[in-house]
């Protein structure tokens, strides 16, 4: 579990250690909760962990606006997230390891849901001027809800994103960020907290190794539909398969990995991965196939 704590500006009031009894100084937790926690502690390891998670979340999100979470637009994604959605004022990173692996599409569904949630506009940052609004309309984001920004430089891009996140009249900000310095990321995070705005950041594959300031980080890439007949479910002709991995979520165990099957009517169903090892076997078997191996040797000789 990767938990990154926000302890820069404010001193931590409560930091709990499992063995010691918790003494919350903040008035929020009611006194009747104490016996519950005591019993929880005595119970299993998972209960202890969930208690700890809740406490850490309270410390971390002290500054954030208290409001109900916004659905991600896809129920299968909501189920994985600790609050069944994104808390308002948070950044969500989407890493697409391919050219067009579906991250933009899934994130836009989230932005459209945020628009429905609050009725405020969605700011779309499009520095390379390739965004195609009719497709966004097809995702459920009406034309009148979009404010399209086309900043010329990367400085302007960060500034415009910061301003939009900071504004309370915007429900979500959607944009592609190829490079993001730590200092800018922190700036965006604070801006999102100030405005209570959802930030959907599309990041390239190289961002996987970099530290994240986002609340949630998804890794999405497209999967070619399985061609063999052994797959446990049916894929019809127009279906699309996306592999989704939760790389990071504050307060949840990361690493959840599953597939989403999208049919032409945009119904999304969760599918368990056809295990990775099998595809590896498949490849190895193919490499070792006498026909293919022979062809390779021939090529080498030539």
């Amino acid at each position: 579990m990767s938990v990154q704590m926000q302890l820069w500006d404010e001193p931590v009031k409560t930091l709990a250690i499992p063995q010691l009894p918790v003494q919350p100084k903040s008035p929020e937790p009611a006194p009747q909760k104490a016996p519950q926690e005591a019993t929880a502690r005595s119970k299993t390891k998972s209960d202890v962990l969930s208690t700890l998670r809740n406490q850490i979340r309270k410390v971390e999100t002290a500054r954030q606006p208290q409001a109900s979470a916004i659905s991600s637009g896809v129920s299968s994604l909501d189920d994985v997230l600790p609050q069944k959605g994104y808390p308002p004022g948070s950044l969500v990173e989407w890493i697409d390891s391919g050219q067009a692996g579906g991250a933009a599409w899934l994130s836009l569904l989230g932005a459209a849901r945020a628009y429905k949630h609050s009725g405020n506009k969605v700011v779309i940052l499009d520095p390379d001027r390739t965004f195609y609004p009719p497709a966004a309309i097809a995702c459920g984001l009406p034309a009148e809800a979009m404010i399209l920004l086309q900043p010329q430089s990367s400085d302007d891009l960060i500034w415009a994103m910061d301003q939009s996140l900071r504004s309370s009249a915007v429900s979500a900000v959607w944009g592609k960020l190829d490079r993001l310095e730590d200092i800018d990321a922190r700036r965006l995070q604070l801006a999102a907290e100030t405005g209570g705005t959802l930030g959907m950041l599309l990041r390239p594959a190289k961002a996987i190794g970099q530290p994240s300031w986002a609340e949630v980080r998804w890794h999405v890439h497209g999967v070619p539909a399985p061609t063999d007949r052994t797959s446990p479910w049916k894929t019809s002709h127009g279906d699309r398969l996306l592999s989704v991995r939760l790389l990071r979520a504050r307060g949840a165990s990361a690493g959840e990995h599953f597939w989403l099957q999208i049919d032409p009517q945009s119904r999304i169903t969760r599918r368990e991965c056809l295990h990775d090892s099998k595809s590896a076997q498949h490849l190895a078997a193919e490499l070792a196939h006498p026909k293919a191996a022979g062809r390779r040797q021939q090529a080498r000789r030539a």
Partner: protein
Amino acid sequence: MVACCRRAAAVGIRVNMSGGEAESLLQVATDGRGITQPHDAQADMEALQELASACAHRFSPIVAIEPMGSRRWAGQWLHLPQGLLLDVTGIEPLFGTEQNLCREVDLFFQSRNLQPRLALACTIAAAWGLSRTAATRPLARRDDKSPSNEAYRITQPEDEFHHLLAMPTRAMRLEPACVDMLARLGIETFGQLIRLPRQGLATRLGPELILRIDQLLGHVGEPLQADPHRPDDTVHLDLDYPTRDKDILQYTISQLIEQLTKNLKQRVHGALRVVCRLELLQHEAVEIRLGLFAPTADADHLTHLMTERFSQQRLVADVHRVSICAPLTALLRQRQPSLIADAEAEVTSSHALANLIDNLAARLGRQSVLKVQTVNNPQPEAAFRLQPLTGQPIGEISRLRNRRRKGGTNRSSPSRKQMSSDQAASSASDASSGNEASRLTEASADTRFLPSPRDPLRRPLRLFNQPIALKVLKTEDAGPPTRFVYRGTHVQTVRSWGPERIETAWWSGPSVRRDYYRIETQQGDWLWVFRKLTTDQWFLHGLFG
């Protein structure tokens, strides 16, 4: 077709021609190297208004943009005003003679790389006609910095009638049909026309002809529709010591804005446009123009925006006078304190939105903060239209657009449809309910080509402005390429869907004939490729997000 250069006119291109016709003529004449540009009526109009205000500061306090007729093409083959009218009554002593005045005006325009056609006459009609007849701008004089006196048509009251006699009828602001009719009768000039019996003219050729004749002779007055600035929407300060110190100037600007907003607040108005004019010593004045998303009388907000723009401004000389005016204002939306929290929240939210958009437009530029409008057009690139959110069309333009929307005389070419489906002015406050209703019916008429949430995977989220040519390695019978090179990597197609044939109409510009396919690569990416049916080449046009 809105305008064309002389070389284009030589190959037969005419104003008011359809886009497709002109395009084909142009491509034939230039072997496919001709360039056509989409027309931005609003930018044209704003440039003309800027010129008008510059003339108002330099020459005459009364400057008007030429009036358009009640019909769109009335009297002129123009879509928009193209001339400026200056009332120079009693100001020629300031410039010496009328010749000198004309020369000053000429030099002023030439310093802006514009070649004016000037005429000075007793009536608007005469000046208009004379400036558009004869060789008011001889070609030989182009390099000559000091224009000769004969270049301008200047008439005196006593000899004006003689000048007018030779004026052709097409310079009389008449309906083209009327001019054609007169030409068939053998009447080409005003002199011939005036000899006709007046009684029969009105019944045969319409009352407008009589009106134009009377206007030319000065029998009927014609009002000059000068841009009315309310005097209290302009504030200025003369600096005792000219300076280019940015801090001092910024302080002055903020003080003036404070004063301006105080005046505006008294009338419960907010500024939609703010112009800050810095008069320089021995140099041309610098103007900073702000266009706002919603009317505002918030001094802090305006100061912030103005400071942002002012800091980007370079001053070549010391400033001796700063003036700030609000050429366009609108009624402020009243904020009624409410017991219901929601209503209050909505008002503050719209206020915050206006602030955000103004801020973004001040730094990123007006052309980078856009709203989206859908257009019913099957061609993917033309299925939407982007429009700046700030600086909505005002005055003449919005009037023209309203007229265009109502008028039934238009041919329904797609470009017209685009023009008529815009407006919207979400908060610019003057969109009447009638317009709103007509727009709704128009939108619901034909939504066949618009994407709908029912088939989200039909169109890509990213569409390249220029389709990328693909190097195809292998295709299977008539289908999309199964192996191709894209950005230096070999891509293999796993599945594909299509074709979806998209063809555009021959009358709407260069024709597009494409077979589109959605393909899935072995990496799991979804791409949108098409085959150009005319050349059988393959292109990548978009990426599904």
